[in-house]
């Protein structure tokens, strides 16, 4: 009755049955059957992440009433209709699930339970995805393949347990390489090709032992950090839960080596051509950064743990001494000399523990302060070495996460969590060990309340998994409704709204909590009372009475239990909560480590400086992509002669801004080069020192940044030594001088304090800054003019002043502003499709003329 027992256990763990009805049965390949089911209670709009699976309860073909549980991946769940499909592999002889599927007809029913989501949640941008599994994993692998971006590199290694398995359809993916291996427990582990897997992410699902071997192989042979392997065992060989799609029992029972040997050979044969090259560079995963980060702390934290263990024991010892004191009292000793030693020892231990505890606290804070300081400096140094293109909004959020939240978690771990966990473990373990030495029988009794707690608790948790999902959903809805209400409050007022939507949501949430929690409240308190001191006290005293009266125990042996045993339950509970911050800190370290491992700008050859004089800019077959195999710019050739104005136009997403960023090394080209032409020489910008490049190329973008400081500092940012007259001249040319003088403290006004500038004003300030820096090459974003219609003309005058005789590249959004450009480059999908002067382009059919006409039509209408 294994299935029945599992079902009971799962129910205890919170699973709820959902009945599903067969809608249709489709054989999509020989031996591969897809069954569509109506499952209105299960597919009810809740989140079903990629590759999530549920437990099907398959009826035993022989024994009525007996069920077997099998994990099945949700295929195409549709919340609107409440339908879902499951894929079954049909092989003779049939097991319960495939037997059921083989005979399934429209109208048949089967039950299923949500258990745990098996979420596909890879780290961001791994080098590639290694997906491995046996036929049972194919539906999940298909779901994952369907989600992966087309440019991703994927290696799929599948195990064919039976000849027909290789016929099972696998979702096609442009970057996927699919390898098949033979049957046998070790076959998957042996089938992993030897190559550099650095920064790959592995997702593996198969039989339990095979998974264990595979993890070991991936970790030890191929270098995968365990954190970068997501693994699931779908079934366990030898257990009643046989091969999931219930292939023959044969492969399970056949002696391993006989099957494994040829399988391995077959695998390596297939694999041989996949990736013959040996890793050329040392294998490295970005996620290792986090582990290394914590490694510097490891011995210190271990020492702290040992010391804390000692302190915990020293804090317990006085109670033991007190028990001994009681024992002597009961024995009729009344002389102070016989008792004072114990008392003094107790006081001494307490005092020593307090001193040690203070010392530990001091040293941990010192360790933390130094570690945190070094970490922050490393982050800052790292930021200064990243390519400018890295600093997107999303990455700015990751900086925030690292320096604010994650740094705080590490601080908590170092100063609090480690001692807390150690104390939480050492105390109850020491107590129970000591009590076992006093009286094993009574000590064993102390586990009874814990068992009662677990039983009551699991009874209470029945159906909780479903409820928790609904609870999370209500919380989300309440948050969303509160946000919407508060943000839309002006509108709510205007339309006489009474916040009904929010009230209904909050009432709904309250109603749900009431319906769920109220019946549970009684059970919850029962489980808590079971582990509180009165329960232990009653148990100790009652058992003690019985044992002492029956002569089975010396009365004095009860004392240690009375002194130490009553709080045992509370101490055990404390351990359970202690690990959460440790786990969080580990994840925090991982995230910080990832930040510290981001690819840096290569400055190894950046040694040259530039001769004075006018400069030109040249793109030579420049290509770039944020990810390999997904280029954004294709072989751009563009020559900007010194003192000319070139405009980039084209639909949004054409790559204009990406191209405009290349001269500043926002990103380095992945092919070709960007060169600065000085005199007769064209110098690759990667050969220039950072200073030379930065003084040669200036940027004025629509995203204006002012630093915290005075307006004078802001203008003179690039030339801190500039004379006041120069600063004022730049401000005057940028049409911002008078605005600054109108402020109470003029040029000494501080941004954000007494200088609050409008969008247009901030832009003019940034133009003044560029004028003062005076770079020979200038990259402009014309969208600047949109921000502040009232001062648009001033921004325009400032821009005109800035252009001067420089070499200018402008990203244009409104075509009429660039009709006088020396060259207009029309971009589409990462390529320059047209180039020429406005008049020339207007007379040729093509994208430019289309864009121009579209603009004119819009004006007319």
């Amino acid at each position, binding site marked *: 009755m294994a299935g029945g027992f599992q079902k009971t256990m799962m129910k205890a763990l919170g699973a709820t049955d959902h009945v599903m009805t067969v809608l249709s049965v489709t054989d999509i390949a020989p031996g591969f059957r897809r069954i569509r089911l109506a499952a209105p209670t299960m597919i009810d709009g809740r989140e079903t992440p990629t590759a999530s699976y549920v437990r099907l309860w398959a009826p035993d073909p022989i024994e009525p009433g007996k069920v077997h549980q099998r994990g099945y991946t949700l295929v195409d769940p549709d919340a609107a209709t409440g339908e879902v499909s499951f894929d079954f592999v049909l092989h003779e002889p049939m097991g319960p699930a495939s037997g059921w599927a083989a005979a399934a007809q429209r109208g048949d029913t089967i039950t299923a339970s949500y258990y745990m989501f098996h979420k596909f949640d890879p780290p961001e941008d791994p080098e590639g995805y290694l997906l491995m599994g046996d036929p049972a994993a194919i539906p999940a692998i298909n779901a994952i393949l369907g989600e992966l971006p087309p440019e991703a590199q994927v290696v799929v290694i599948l195990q064919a347990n039976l000849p027909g398995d290789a016929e099972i359809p696998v979702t096609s993916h442009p970057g996927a390489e699919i390898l098949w291996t033979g049957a046998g427990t070790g076959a998957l582990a042996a089938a992993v090709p030897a190559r550099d897997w650095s920064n790959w992410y592995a997702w593996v699902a198969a039989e339990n032992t095979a998974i264990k071997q595979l993890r070991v192989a991936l970790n030890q042979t191929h270098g995968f950090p365990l954190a970068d392997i997501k693994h699931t065992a779908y079934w366990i060989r030898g257990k009643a839960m046989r091969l999931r799609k219930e292939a023959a029992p044969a492969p399970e029972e056949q002696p391993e080596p006989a099957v494994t040997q040829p399988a391995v050979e077959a695998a390596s044969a297939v694999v041989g051509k996949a990736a013959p090259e040996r890793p050329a560079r040392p294998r490295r995963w970005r996620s290792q950064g986090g582990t290394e980060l914590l490694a510097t702390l490891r011995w210190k934290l271990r020492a702290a743990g040992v010391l804390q263990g000692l302190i915990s024991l020293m804090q317990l010892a006085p*109670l033991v001494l007190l028990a001994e004191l009681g024992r002597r009292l009961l024995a009729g000793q009344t002389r102070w000399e016989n008792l004072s030693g114990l008392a003094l020892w107790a006081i001494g231990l307490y005092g020593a523990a307090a001193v040690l505890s203070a010392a530990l606290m*001091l040293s941990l804070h010192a360790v933390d302060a130094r570690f945190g300081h070094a970490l922050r*400096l490393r982050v800052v140094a790292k930021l200064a070495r990243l390519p400018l293109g890295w600093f997107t909004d999303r990455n700015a959020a990751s900086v925030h996460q690292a*320096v604010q939240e994650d740094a705080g978690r590490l601080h908590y771990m170092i*100063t609090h969590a480690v001692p807390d966990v150690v104390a939480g473990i050492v105390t109850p373990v020491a107590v129970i060990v000591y009590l076992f030495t006093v009286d094993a029988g009574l000590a064993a009794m102390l586990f009874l309340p814990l068992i009662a707690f677990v039983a009551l608790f699991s009874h209470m948790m029945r159906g909780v998994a479903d409820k928790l999902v609904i609870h999370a959903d209500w919380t989300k809805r309440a*948050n969303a409704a509160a946000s919407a209400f508060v943000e839309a409050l002006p*509108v709510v007022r205007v339309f006489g709204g009474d916040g009904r939507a929010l009230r209904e949501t909050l009432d709904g949430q309250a109603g749900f909590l009431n319906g769920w929690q109220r019946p549970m409240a*009684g059970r919850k308190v029962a489980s808590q009372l079971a582990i509180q001191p009165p329960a232990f006290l009653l148990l100790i005293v009652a058992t003690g009475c019985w044992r002492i009266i029956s002569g089975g125990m010396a009365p004095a042996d009860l004392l240690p239990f009375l002194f130490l045993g009553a709080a045992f339950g509370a101490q055990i509970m404390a351990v359970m909560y202690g690990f959460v911050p440790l786990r969080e800190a580990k994840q925090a370290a991982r995230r910080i480590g990832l930040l510290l491992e981001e690819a840096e700008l290569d400055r190894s050859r950046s040694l040259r400086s530039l001769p004075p004089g006018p400069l030109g800019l040249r793109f030579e077959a420049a290509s770039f992509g944020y990810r390999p195999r997904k280029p954004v710019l294709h072989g751009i050739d563009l020559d900007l002669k010194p003192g000319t104005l070139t405009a980039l136009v084209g639909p949004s997403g054409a790559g204009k801004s990406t191209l405009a960023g290349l001269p500043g090394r926002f990103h380095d080209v992945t092919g070709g080069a960007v060169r600065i032409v000085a005199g007769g020489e064209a110098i690759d910008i990667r050969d220039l020192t950072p200073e030379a490049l930065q003084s040669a190329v200036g940027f004025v973008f629509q995203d204006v940044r002012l*630093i915290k400081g005075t307006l004078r500092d802001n203008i003179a940012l690039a030339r801190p030594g500039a004379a006041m007259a120069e600063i004022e001249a730049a401000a005057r040319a940028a049409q911002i001088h008078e605005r600054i003088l109108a402020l109470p403290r003029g040029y000494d006004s501080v941004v954000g304090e007494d200088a609050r500038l409008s969008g247009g004003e901030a832009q003019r300030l940034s133009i003044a800054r560029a004028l003062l820096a005076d770079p020979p090459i200038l990259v402009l974003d014309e969208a600047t003019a949109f921000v502040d219609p009232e001062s648009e003309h001033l921004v325009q005058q400032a821009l005109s002043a800035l252009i001067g005789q420089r070499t200018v590249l402008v990203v244009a959004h409104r075509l009429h502003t660039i009709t006088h450009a020396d060259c207009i480059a029309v971009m589409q999908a990462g390529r320059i499709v047209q180039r020429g002067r406005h008049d020339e382009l207007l007379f040729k059919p093509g994208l430019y003329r289309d864009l121009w006409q579209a603009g004119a039509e819009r004006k007319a209408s």
Partner: protein
Amino acid sequence: MIVATLLPPEARPRLVPYLLLAAVAACLRAAAALLLVPLLGALFSSAPREALPWLCALAASIAAGWALERHLVIRAFDLGFAMMTSMNRRLVDHLLAVPIGWFGAAQQGQAKRALAGAVPELFASSVNLATQATIAVMLPPAIGLGLLFVAWPLGLAALLAAPLLFGALLLGARLMRRAEADYAAASEEAAARTEEFARSQLLLRAAGRTGADGTPLGEAIASQKRNGLRILWFTLPGTLAFSLAMQATLLTLVAVLALMFAQGVTDGARTVALIVVVLRFLEPLNTLSELFPALESTHGAASRMLAILDVPRQPEPEQDARPGPPAIAFRDVGFSPGGQRVLESVSFTVQAGSITAIVGPSGSGKSTILSLVARLHDVDAGSVQLGEQDVRAYRPQTLMDQLSIVFQNVQLFEGGIDANIRIARPSANEEAVHAAAAAAGVDEIVARLGRWDAPVGEGGGALSGGERQRVSIARALLKDAPILLLDEATSGLDTLNEAAVMTALSRFGQRTVLIVAHRLETIARADQILFVEGGRVIEAGSRDELIAAGGRFADYWSDRQGARTWRFDRDAV
């Protein structure tokens, strides 16, 4: 008491019985502890059988305690539930009556947290924490009182020690909180500077400043390190205060027992039993110190909610005024929120049935004028009149019935586009909604998204700024009130958006329109133009009059005309 303020008035009387029953539960626990004295006395004597009646009494008191505590948790649940439902209602009611001007970004966050975070947290605490914490507070005094009858010197010492222990617990927690707050503040500063450093990389590198030394960032990181060590002076006493107080109390009480034993007041068995009672006396304080972080956080949640309820409401008149013809008049209006002057002696009149455009540089107070008409804020001087009455003379509903409003930054509700438009007039039929949508160019958005009930995302995030404003214009058209207040969008302007604004102007042209205008076409449609600069109306009149007068508006008009034809040209300087 804070708990009473959180509860709805009808539930407050239930608080006293709850506390009384909790006291009984504490007494039962105390009784269980004290019963150990005779029980162990008998058990350790030569006739251990005499312990059995005491054991029965102990079992009975513990069982009775269990039953009572279970009952108390359910009572606490009901109280917490009453608190949750009434608090939700009170918060929403109150937020609807607070002046809109109160809602800065920080206040919005505060309101959201109170609504969706604090209330459920308080409920959870009342279910999970309240009973346990209440009993833990009452138990040590109860045991101390009981000890007075069993061994009075010990009872006296315990009663004297109890306030000391509670004090040490609170002091320790306060010092720790102070330390953590200091550390968090220093970390936040360092983090903020690091983020600024990240965001300003382009700028800093262009300026050749790539290090942290000698910058505010370097300073923040250094001060963060200093603070990390400085907080020790709070952390150390914070963590030690309580444990030292506990150990000192234990030693003192054991010393009292030793004295009593030495004087022959108690025998050995009784002394041992009393040591067990002393440990029971200290036990609830450990429980409290473990519950303390949760209790602190609950206290914080309660304060956050009460802080919202403390925000003053916008005053409402006793009697509602009756609106006259839809004209607007500002009479010497001054508005200085937080002491900062935004508007000063603003006076103008918008005749019923006319269009008035407010024009001027950014930050001059244009949008504020609109918000005062809708009474989103109250003026500090002068009066704003609408329909020949002061806006403060109307009940909010009456005032809003006079207005269709299109804001600059439009927020939409999470829901379909049609629902977002229909909110303006819930009784409207489908044709009316669709007609308003078509007139505002929303049908084009619907065509893009595929259906009328296509979700607009949180806050309308699935739509561009211009598209959101079009939905808002459709709302205004559907509502069809006597007065239109329109704040023209500056960003994301597209032709459809411009057309929607024009439609609104022509629809409402026969009624009364006050518009903050940026585009020259819009300005040209106005009967009257108010040129606002530095919080004052410095010019008013028709476009032709103002251009002829050659003042600030005339300059503005020619600058704007020039800006339309400007192009990148190195000869233009």
